[in-house]
């Protein structure tokens, strides 16, 4: 009982003390808004939070995000048939965060307040305001590529107080053209306040980021208007919340071309090409911060707080810094998309017409004649990583009588003479972990820095979101669609040059060249899904048919000939087979996946929202 009385006494005392004004002090753990927007460091910390909130889509903070498309497959465990693997889901990488929009609008109110204007340097203040406008435009862009048109709230900060009619919070969806127009206008607005100088590691958005996003939004809108009506005419809503009328295509293509050319000619960025070592210079263009002339805007990482384990998980297991490796295997489909320097058929020949093996003198032969960007994107057998070769060997080819037979072992196994049979890196076609399953590893974004895979510091690899090469491809695409093939060829050859492949001519260029150029230039950079969606090619390439050349993922296994006295001893053969992990699931993109679903509970709260097509 005594204890209860004690509690009561304490409660009573607290109640009495509560009447004293001594407790009405400023809280020490909460910053009032007035303090935030009068202090540059505090305002920047709010902005930093916005930068950290807009990581949408495939990215090198999550190697698993590469698994579902046609670039790479996971290597851990047995082949699986999850729902997402069977059908590319319509909600893949969707971005929906109106809480963020509200916080951004609160920030804009604060940073535009008189208190902020009097306390901060005008150049700092207007730059921060413009950064927030840019990030809000980026968010709307990332939302639009999944949903099409969505409610545009402008600068309004919606705040509910009791008694307010909630109907004024219910904003209808804009048209799809309308949301791209909004992104374009906001990029223009942001560009006036942003710096035109390069920022450290591209970590902070500048004018060129805003203009390149504008060009990207314009070319997305243009291609949806163009190909949406040609290839998927039924895929729009009655009032064009999804889909853009065909007659708007030319306008957007012109805007895209004009803006991309502005970025190319006026910005301080340039394509990074070192003629002496094209492959290495392409790797450096995407994955090395020092001396980079190419990346405009990136998620920059800095130890110890912002790091990625991408290198730890995906680096060659033979070269591992820590406990993991080989988590991601690049598929043959992507490797074969890289053209050959001599212009010959880029498919890698594994068998002759009579079914016999094709023998290569070196395991690198099929790859070293390809676009040099392959070296900078993929680790192929015997290509170096951190200056030492990565051995990818599925097994040996031995002679049995007159026939060649394949021989495999457990990873790292050797024959009686001590010759390697199957490499510790694989590739293998079984459910073991830490061995490759496709014959190729990823190089792009895998850190060359020693110990970049080591716990707890890991890698400071950045995530480039916008780089100058895209301006060239947007310009090429828009010029091509507008009928100016000469210009398209010029811009396309600018990026093709970095691979050392044959320049295109006005007579030869086709739309497929542009599609493929995006694929090889921007592999693993969160372009593929969105590009195939806006060109309305996704359901054609990823048609779900087993063994279809674009839907089924393939692997390429190298075997070394170990047969003393045979004329082919020491040579290499390759076998092509379906990618182990994705074998049961040819890529399948149903029409409904072009637009993400408007959720029923959003419609319950806001009946003005209309459903997307096929929903």
């Amino acid at each position: 009982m005594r204890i209860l009385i004690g509690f009561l006494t304490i409660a009573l005392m607290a109640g009495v003390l509560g009447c004293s004004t001594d407790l009405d002090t400023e809280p020490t753990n909460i910053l009032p808004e007035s303090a935030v927007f009068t202090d540059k460091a505090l305002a920047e910390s709010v902005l930093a939070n916005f930068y950290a909130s807009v990581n949408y889509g495939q990215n090198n903070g999550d190697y698993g995000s590469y698994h579902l498309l046609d670039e790479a497959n996971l290597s851990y465990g047995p082949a699986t048939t999850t729902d997402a693997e069977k059908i590319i889901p319509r909600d893949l990488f969707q971005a929906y965060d109106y809480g963020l929009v509200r916080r951004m609008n609160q920030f804009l109110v604060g940073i535009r307040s008189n208190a902020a204007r009097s306390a901060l340097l005008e150049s700092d203040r207007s730059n921060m305001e413009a950064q927030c406008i840019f990030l809000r435009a980026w968010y709307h862009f990332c939302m639009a590529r999944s949903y099409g048109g969505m409610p545009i709230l402008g600068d309004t900060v919606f705040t509910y107080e009791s008694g307010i009619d909630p109907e004024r919070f219910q904003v209808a969806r804009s048209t799809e053209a309308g949301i791209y127009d909004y992104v374009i206008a906001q990029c223009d607005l942001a560009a006036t306040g942003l710096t035109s100088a390069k920022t450290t590691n591209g970590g902070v958005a500048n004018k060129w980021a805003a203009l390149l996003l504008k060009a990207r939004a314009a070319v997305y809108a243009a291609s949806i208007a163009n190909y949406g009506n040609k290839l998927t005419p039924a895929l729009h809503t009655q009032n064009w919340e999804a889909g853009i009328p065909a007659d708007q295509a030319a306008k957007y293509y012109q805007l895209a071309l004009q803006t991309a050319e502005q970025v190319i000619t006026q910005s301080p960025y340039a394509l990074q090409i070192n003629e002496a070592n094209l492959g290495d210079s392409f790797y450096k263009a995407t994955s090395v911060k020092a001396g980079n002339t190419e990346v405009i805007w990136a998620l920059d990482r800095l130890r110890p707080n912002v790091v990625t384990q991408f290198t730890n998980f995906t680096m060659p297991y033979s070269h591992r810094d820590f406990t993991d490796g080989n988590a991601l295997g690049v598929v043959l489909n992507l490797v074969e998309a890289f053209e050959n320097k001599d212009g010959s058929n880029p498919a890698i020949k594994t068998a002759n017409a009579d079914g016999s093996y094709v023998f290569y003198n070196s395991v690198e032969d099929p790859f070293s004649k390809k676009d040099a960007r392959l070296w900078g994107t993929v680790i192929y057998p015997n290509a170096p990583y951190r200056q030492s070769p990565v051995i990818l060997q599925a097994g040996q080819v031995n002679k049995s009588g007159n026939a060649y037979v394949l021989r495999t072992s457990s990873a790292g196994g050797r024959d009686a003479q001590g010759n390697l049979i199957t490499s510790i890196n694989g590739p293998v076609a079984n459910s073991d972990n830490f061995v490759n399953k496709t014959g190729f590893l990823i190089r792009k974004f895998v850190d060359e820095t020693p110990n970049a895979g080591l716990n707890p510091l890991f890698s400071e690899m950045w995530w480039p979101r916008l780089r100058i090469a895209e301006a060239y491809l947007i310009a090429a695409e828009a010029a091509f669609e507008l009928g100016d093939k000469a210009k398209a060829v010029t811009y396309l050859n600018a990026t093709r040059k970095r691979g050392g492949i044959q320049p295109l001519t006005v007579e030869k260029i086709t739309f497929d060249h542009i599609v493929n150029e995006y694929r090889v230039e921007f592999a693993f950079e969160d372009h593929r899904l969105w590009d195939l969606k806006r060109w309305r090619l996704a359901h054609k390439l990823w048609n779900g048919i087993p063994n279809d050349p674009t839907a089924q993922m393939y692997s390429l296994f190298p075997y070394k000939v170990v047969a003393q006295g045979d004329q082919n001893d020491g040579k290499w053969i390759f076998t092509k087979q379906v990618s182990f992990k994705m074998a049961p699931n040819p890529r399948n993109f149903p029409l409904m996946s072009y637009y993400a679903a408007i959720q029923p509970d959003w419609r319950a709260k806001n009946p003005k929202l209309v459903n997307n097509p096929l929903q």
Partner: protein
Amino acid sequence: MAIRSIFKAIFVLLLITVLLPGCSTEIDNWDYPRSIVSGRFVYKGQPMQLMSTASDATGSNMLQLHQTGGDWIQGFVKVFAKEDGTFTVNAFDGDYYLTLTPGRGPWQPNMDTVRFSLNGEKRDLAFEVTPYFWISDFKDSFADSTLTATFKLEQIVASAELERIVVELGTTAIVDNLSKAYEKSFTTITPGTNTVTLNLKELSVVEKANLQRTGHLFARIGVKTAGVSDMIYSETVKLQ
């Protein structure tokens, strides 16, 4: 603090733990719905074979159950259908309508609804659809590891374009586009009576291994219309 007062404190806490749940009301403890809605998809009164919704890979089902009246604004019950086109769902009593999910099903899109009042049970609802193609007179034989299937293919919707016919094999009784172990496509088939054959001996080692998982083998024929995600199927047969 003395040991005794600790015991007292624990006793008080225990008392609270025991007494608090007694305060809850019955309002959040609804019984699950017991009324039954059932029916099947039909074309001119004939039942049809569909993809079973054993997998929810598309995130949507072919049929939606909407409740009307009262405060219902949005939202619906996803109705799972079996491979023979039948569906059963439990719901609360009330007024409902059934409608197709746009973009799903091997039939012409339509916004028709089947309206009914549910009171206890509502059985044998027929949801009438117009498929693009129709499979009938399906016969199969399986001998010497070779499947021979004969069927009649009819084009129902004149504007539809036939993309391919598939023979799908699976190791369970549920065989469809998303739950299959092997598929072979035929692209040269035209409407009329057709025969397709599939020699399992010609399969690759991996494919054979995939088909031997359970020791049972089932087959089904599917018709894919160009630009339509779902297929219409023949009935599933066991190969033995």
